[in-house]
């Protein structure tokens, strides 16, 4: 443009600063989008970009992109960008908004994304009144994948999966997202606009700006549905597609405002920001002091360690805790460890077992198919795992006597009434620790300091720590009385 021509003119409409100068997706023509000629996404992108630029929020906008033709938002918008799994954009946007309340979080989704696979996410985000902005691009079909029927497809509209046209009898009726969300209490602003003619397009730009502005004001959930042409899949010229939005689509999806409380809505009180990462251990009760220091008592020397343990019993017997103390102590001692719990839905009295491995070498699988030591806290557990014990291994059994039918010539057995022994110490619930004491006697691979540290990390109540320590001692003694160390 020559300066002579433009001296009396000022630019009123040009490419928004919220767009990148160049889009790096392609090697050439990097200022051209990937959208087909006449695609509504381009218009909606421009409206959104103008709103972002005009409101001066470019540096704090986070755009959550969809799956579909709109996926490449991150190539176009010079704002923060996140990609979400198909339909999950409102859930991701919720997380973004809650962790960065100052951010302006915009979820940009198509109808396959929002109204099909993502129906649950959008309904619940709206119902919670998340302070996000949702731009819902509805072209009544799955376009990127080649034109399959969508929940928003019009009755009679042909698609590759409804070649005879959508029939209400088999595919139901078009899903009216705005109407549905407007039945909820929380949303502040819901409007359906179209790209069907000049008037509709200018209204669409206004609505999108308003939906973003609502978030800047902090008033709550805003959603704009845009009826958007897809000339390619609709098999029309861009101009025909535009007219089809106005003349056909609008009959099924009437334009208008379905909820508007933007005027009376007051900025919602600031949500409590997510706690900083360093405070989370304290909130969860695993504050720094209690957190695994990792390798605090790393063992010297190069002695090979490869201990595989299976612990089994009823839920509530402390099966998992026994394994945890063992694994935690291993961690403290600088070993590679794995702890794999396996239990049913019952919190008490269901069967429960866990696999624990301690090794100097990286652990290939956390599964323990042939344990060196089986800790069987009851008879059913013994029955289940007896045969799996490695020849030369050990079975620690909680019972007065080892049942004859499970006797094996090739394994060592330590059978004691551990529950009764624990009861004598003060509480039958400490039987797991007596058994752990016996196990540590058998597999003498861990320094005492690591076991003490693990116990203190995992057992919060000092009274229990004291009892558990007595229980561990008792278990070691029981083993010593019976045998001398055999396992490495």
């Amino acid at each position: 443009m020559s300066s002579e021509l433009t001296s009396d003119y000022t630019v009123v409409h040009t490419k928004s600063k919220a767009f990148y100068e160049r889009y790096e997706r392609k090697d050439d023509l990097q200022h051209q989008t990937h959208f087909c000629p006449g695609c509504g996404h381009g218009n909606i992108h421009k409206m959104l970009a103008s709103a972002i630029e005009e409101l001066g929020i470019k540096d704090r906008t986070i755009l959550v992109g969809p799956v579909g033709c709109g996926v490449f938002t991150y190539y176009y918008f010079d704002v923060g960008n996140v990609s979400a799994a198909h339909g999950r954009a409102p859930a991701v946007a919720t997380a973004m908004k809650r962790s960065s309340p100052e951010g302006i979080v915009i979820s940009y989704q198509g109808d396959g994304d929002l109204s099909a696979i993502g129906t649950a996410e959008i309904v619940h985000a709206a119902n919670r009144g998340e302070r996000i902005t949702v731009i819902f691009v509805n072209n009544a079909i799955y376009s990127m994948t080649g034109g399959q029927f969508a929940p928003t497809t019009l009755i009679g509209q042909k698609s590759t999966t409804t070649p005879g046209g959508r029939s209400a009898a088999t595919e139901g009726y078009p899903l009216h997202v705005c109407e549905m969300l407007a039945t909820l209490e929380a949303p502040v602003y819901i409007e359906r606009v179209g790209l069907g003619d000049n008037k509709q397009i200018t209204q669409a730009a206004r609505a999108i700006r308003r939906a973003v502005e609502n978030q800047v004001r902090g008033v709550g959930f805003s959603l704009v549905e845009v009826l958007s042409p897809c000339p390619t899949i609709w098999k029309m010229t861009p101009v025909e597609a535009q007219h089809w939005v106005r003349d056909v689509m609008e009959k099924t999806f009437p334009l208008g405002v379905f909820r508007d409380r933007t005027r009376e809505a007051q900025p919602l009180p600031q949500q409590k920001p997510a706690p900083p990462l360093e405070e989370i251990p304290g909130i969860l009760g695993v504050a720094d002091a209690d957190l695994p220091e990792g390798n605090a008592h790393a063992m010297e020397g190069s002695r090979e360690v490869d201990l595989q343990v299976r612990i089994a019993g009823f839920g509530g017997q402390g099966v998992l805790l026994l394994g945890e103390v063992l694994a935690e102590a291993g961690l403290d001692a600088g070993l590679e460890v794995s702890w794999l719990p396996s239990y049913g839905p019952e919190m008490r009295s269901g069967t429960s077992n866990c696999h624990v491995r301690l090794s100097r070498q990286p652990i290939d699988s956390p599964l323990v198919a042939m344990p060196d030591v089986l800790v069987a806290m009851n008879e059913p557990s013994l029955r289940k795992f007896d045969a799996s014990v490695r020849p030369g291994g050990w079975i620690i059994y909680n019972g007065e006597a080892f049942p004859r039918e499970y006797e094996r010539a090739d394994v060592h057995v330590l059978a004691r009434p551990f529950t009764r022994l624990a009861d004598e110490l003060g509480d039958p619930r400490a039987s797991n620790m007596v058994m752990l004491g016996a196990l540590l006697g058998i597999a003498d691979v861990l320094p005492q300091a690591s076991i003490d540290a693990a116990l203190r990390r995992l057992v919060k109540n000092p009274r229990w720590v004291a009892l558990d320590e007595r229980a561990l001692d008792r278990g070691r003694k029981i083993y010593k009385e019976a045998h001398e160390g055999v396992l490495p």
Partner: protein
Amino acid sequence: MEAQKRDRGLLYIDTDECKGCGLCVEACPPKVIHIGERLNHYGYRTAVYAGSGCTGCGICFLVCPEPGAITVLRATSPQVGAKRAPAAGVEGESSCASN
């Protein structure tokens, strides 16, 4: 040159970015955009400004799906616009809410 200066608006079309969808041609109130004969880099026949008659309403910018294919300018001094105010231009102005 003089004729163009008298228009209230001015229009630039980046023919490399334009994909020739024709929505601006349809939307333009004073009908000063048409699809040209020349093919661009991608083989699209692109939109072309007639060279005069633009009212600067900006509706072509809004209907155009490409971010920067169209740039709309508007006359700064009131006299420039006053000398030429075609009826169609007035209509275009009123239909463009974003201004």
